[in-house]
């Protein structure tokens, strides 16, 4: 029973990491309407940039994390402006958009490996002993991860509900043509969406690295389909659905380790993805016109 409760705590941490990542993917999907298969590589970009800033350039860790987050957003925006949007403007079919992002993931992964090699890295932060809160037990880093995720989710909520940009994003996600004809600068909104999506990917990568402590450039890569599982579970393109999906997937995968070996965590996520596609492919919160 204690292990079970402990795992619920870890589920909360995993859900926090996943929520950042799945919301980032979902926001971008809603606006641009194609899945970005290079998203897993953006995690690596964030992770490694934060490592460079903190370990090599000796910035304080919070500053390194912030810089890593913003630079990943910039990388995402530059890639979108330079590669993806030109393809989208040419009205290439969905097939080709997906292959392009898939190709991009190979390029980014290998560029990261060229720069950083295949070694394992660790952030220069002190490893604290776990703190016990009720039945749960967290390291300081894990508490910070949960706090960061909560702040980020509130931030995304405020962005979508209170700001012009957020409202424009929602409008474009609902109906692109209508949004354009009501005078929304769709190009600009798309650009900012890629930036925000990249920031969330970078931040997600950094907190993932904090959580698993020692990481490689491609540590985020295998998480990609777990993110997809969370996004599809919540209803593809649905931001709040993605938060819900992340919570469910995070909890289910961690709680499953009470019963089976933790080596099969991802297989559980895959089973959830498969069940979802078979039983309720539109997701928990279906979106109109998507999927």
């Amino acid at each position, binding site marked *: 029973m204690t292990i079970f409760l402990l795992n619920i705590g870890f589920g909360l941490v995993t859900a926090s990491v996943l929520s950042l990542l799945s919301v980032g993917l979902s926001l971008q999907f809603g606006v641009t309407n194609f*899945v970005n298969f290079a998203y897993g590589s953006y995690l690596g970009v964030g992770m490694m940039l934060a490592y460079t800033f903190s370990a090599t350039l000796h910035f304080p860790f919070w500053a390194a994390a912030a810089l890593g987050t913003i630079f990943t957003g910039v990388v995402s925006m530059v890639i979108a402006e330079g590669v993806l949007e030109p393809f989208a403007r040419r009205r290439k079919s969905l097939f080709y958009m997906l292959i392009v992002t898939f190709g991009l993931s190979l390029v980014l992964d290998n560029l990261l490996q060229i720069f950083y090699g295949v070694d394992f890295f660790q952030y220069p932060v002190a490893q604290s002993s776990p703190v016990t809160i009720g039945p749960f037990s967290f390291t300081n880093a894990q508490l910070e991860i949960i706090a960061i995720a909560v702040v980020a989710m509130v931030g995304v909520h405020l962005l979508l509900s209170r700001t012009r940009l957020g409202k424009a994003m929602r409008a474009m996600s609902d109906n692109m043509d209508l949004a354009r004809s009501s005078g929304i600068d769709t190009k600009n909104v798309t650009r900012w969406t890629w930036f925000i999506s990249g920031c969330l990917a970078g931040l997600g990568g950094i907190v993932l690295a904090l959580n698993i402590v020692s990481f490689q450039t491609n540590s985020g890569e295998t998480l990609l389909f777990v993110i997809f599982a969370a996004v599809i579970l919540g209803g593809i393109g649905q931001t709040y659905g993605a938060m819900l999906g992340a919570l469910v997937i995070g909890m289910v995968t961690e709680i499953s380790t009470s019963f089976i070996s933790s080596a099969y965590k991802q297989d559980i996520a895959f089973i959830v993805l498969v069940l979802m596609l078979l039983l309720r492919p539109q997701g928990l919160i279906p979106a109109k016109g998507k999927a």
Partner: protein
Amino acid sequence: MTLILGYVATLLVTFFTYNIFVIGLNIQFGYAGILNFTVITFMAFGAYFYAVFVMPHADNSSQVFYILGLHWPWPLAMLAGIVASGALGYLVGLIALKRLRSDYLAIVTLATGTLVYGLFGNNNKLFDGWSGLFNVNQPFQSVATNHPNEFSWIFVVFSGVVMLVVWLFANRLYASPLGRSMRAIREDQDVVDSFGKNSFKVRMLAMVIGSVIVGIGGVLTIQYIGALSPAGWTTGETFVVWAALLVGGRANNLGAIVGSLLVAVIFNEATRYIPQVPSHPNLIPNLRNVIIGGLVILSIWFRPQGVVPEKKASFLEVPLVDKYAQGFPGEEPGGTLSPAASEA
């Protein structure tokens, strides 16, 4: 001379097997528009299952573990490997082909690839984990005893014949009514549905046939090399197949041949001769992957139809009859509806 001959044989076998992979992917993507982002997993399935069917029972004292170990004769084991690969294709199709959006299938293939890779690698009881299988029984070993290259050249002929059969089959499929349905689904599934075709079934057939063909290539690979470990089927390998297909030209098996010659043989082999950088042992393979990924993107931008584009379908034009001029109630209007109209 012996060395060169052996090398040429290896190049030819590489060319033939990659050609088979590309044709398999071509049937899935080029014909039916199915995005399979884990081609190489099907190759591994074929290869591994061939291996465990043909190898003798695992000898536990050697610390090499694998399932089955049935020691079947190689043609039967070959069949088993191919069936295993087709079955995986069927399962993946069952999960994702009912969905309309192609994203879902792409996600499921990618997830399957990640999963199978982790499962086969981490679980050393299945296919000997990360170290992989080796000393896999090769065919023709009993006859090829005279000369080290004899096996290689027998295998060149064998894989060449298999490739030819696959090639002819793929071309036959392309021109068949089933192939036409596949291409129609690729262009517009709604239209095909409205014609009363069972598009799920047609797509499933494309998925399974493609997987079976990739599986054949996988079996040939392990038969020739005699070993396979997870390091031999990473995502990068999937890209080589994709790049070959896109560079060569999708939906055209001649393009598949050109693509696998250019990408899998000439580009891949040429980069092997670039001297290694001692401080960065992975630099060259990484650069190769960057270039292949870039090649995929650039070929879609500059020449999406590939070096050898798909031939436009040409139909016999039948002059249209003015159907309102002579139409009576109850009579077939037009009368001479051209076959073009029903196939377009």
